[in-house]
């Protein structure tokens, strides 16, 4: 099952010191390489800070655009991993090793299973035939 690991950390104005930033990068690189060697790596990437965030909400059929993230929280979404794990326990073990101080400070990782989208579900409903899905 694919799990998305959402990294939340406290953003610091000005970002990390160079040395911490380097350490952080090396930590992520090593973890990503290990996951890739084990054949479970799907994707991972950092996000630009929330100062670059834009939120779009459709109200009465019209897109309302606002500056900033959709919710003001103590810790902000800073990046993600997608790993293919056997179970939640395996996902927890990996999540515990993700450096969470991407943009400064300590943080946490939220694990959410990815549900996947069945390939052409409408065909399946229409014909009652089993179609190989990726869920």
């Amino acid at each position, binding site marked *: *099952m694919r799990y998305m690991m959402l990294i939340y950390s406290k953003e610091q104005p000005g970002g990390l010191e160079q040395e911490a930033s380097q350490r952080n990068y090396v930590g992520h690189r090593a973890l990503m390489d290990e996951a890739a060697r084990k054949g479970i790596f799907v994707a991972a990437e950092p996000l630009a800070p929330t100062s670059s965030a834009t939120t779009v909400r459709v109200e009465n059929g019209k897109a309302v655009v606002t500056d900033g993230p959709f919710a003001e929280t103590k810790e902000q979404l800073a990046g993600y991993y997608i790993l293919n794990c*056997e*179970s*939640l*326990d395996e996902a*927890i073990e990996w999540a515990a090793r993700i450096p969470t101080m991407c943009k400064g400070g300590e943080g946490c990782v939220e*694990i959410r*299973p990815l549900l996947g989208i069945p390939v052409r579900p409408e065909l*399946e409903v229409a014909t*009652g035939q*089993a179609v190989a*899905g990726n869920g």
Partner: protein
Amino acid sequence: MADVRSVAEAVFRQESGRILAGLIRISGSFDRAEEAMQEAFSTALATWPEKGIPESAAGWITTTAHRKLIDVVRRDNIWREKQTSLRYAAELAGFSPGPDLEDSLMNFPDDRLRLIFTCCHPALNQEAQIALTLRTLGGLTTPEIAKAFLLPEPTLAQRIVRAKRKIQEAHIPYEVPPTHLLPERLPSVQAVIYLIFNEGYTAASGDQLVRIDLCSEAIRLARVLCDLMPAEPENLALLALMFLHHSRRYARIRRGELVTLEEQDRSLWDQTAIREGLTLVEKALASGAPGPYQLQAAIAALHAQARTPEQTDWPQIAELYEKLLEHNPSRVIALNHAVAIAMSAGLEAGLKRIDDSGATGELNDYYLFHAARADILRRLNRPTEAAEAYGRALALATNQVERNFLDRRLRHLNRLSELG
């Protein structure tokens, strides 16, 4: 007919955890397993009155439930969840009920251990862990659990549904964690069992009988845990601790009022439970550095061995609390430590310890802090300060039995001051 029902109920209470655990392993689904088991019990109630109760009622239910499970899986085996269902179907294809099968189905101890670890998985919140454990392993029905926890039934049912859904959706594994994860996973299992016990033991409100039932249920679960992981001293200690507390169940409440350890009629203590507890403590303590349950059980054992309050080995109890604080620096343990110091090194020393711990002001809203202070002040013969502390404790306490106790102490002090 009454016989049939009572036999079925007994099988349900004693064996449903075992049966369900096996069904979940095969089907990978709590819901299907429960459905199959319920159908097996319905079939028993429908056919036993005519055909007679089978010699091994539990075995009969187990085999029938496994047959029902095949039906349930086949019926559900439509396009939804194809792949996983296929896996179950493949496993079930190799399944042919026969005379030896009952035995092998009944004796798969790992199933229940898997089930305990899944129900108490840290990814579920603790309330859900408790409800799910009682429901699946404890053989308690949802209304029974709701009643015991003084909760509306829909709230509890919702809690169980959500927990089962999370297990399914997040793929919480149905397995005993590997050795390297045990140190972080076993404590959550022990905590759930101890919380079930405490719910029955401390909150002396609501239906008393139901509550004592919760204590027995927790003891039964701890026994299962000991059977399944006999080499784990903390499991033995947890069971011992509960036996030793449980031994005082008839002495600690008198006419609905809380009786302190010191004032309890010790002849009412259940000596069988004490013996069992003491044997377990010895066994648990034989193995090296003691963990938190071993320390708590050792403390309970020292209390249980004192024939009169004066014979209590307070210096050793104080020492044990000090070690316990290293494991778990919580405020309730710190207060207990201070009380043990008061009873061993002297009341003044104990009071100083309590006041030091309250110096930051963060215990001001904690009723036990004021109650413990009040008790030491009372013993020090400082009634005015004691009454003031009891008053503050009373303003903060919420449990009716505890409130009655504090109120009684306060009134007693006021009477004394009127006399003086």
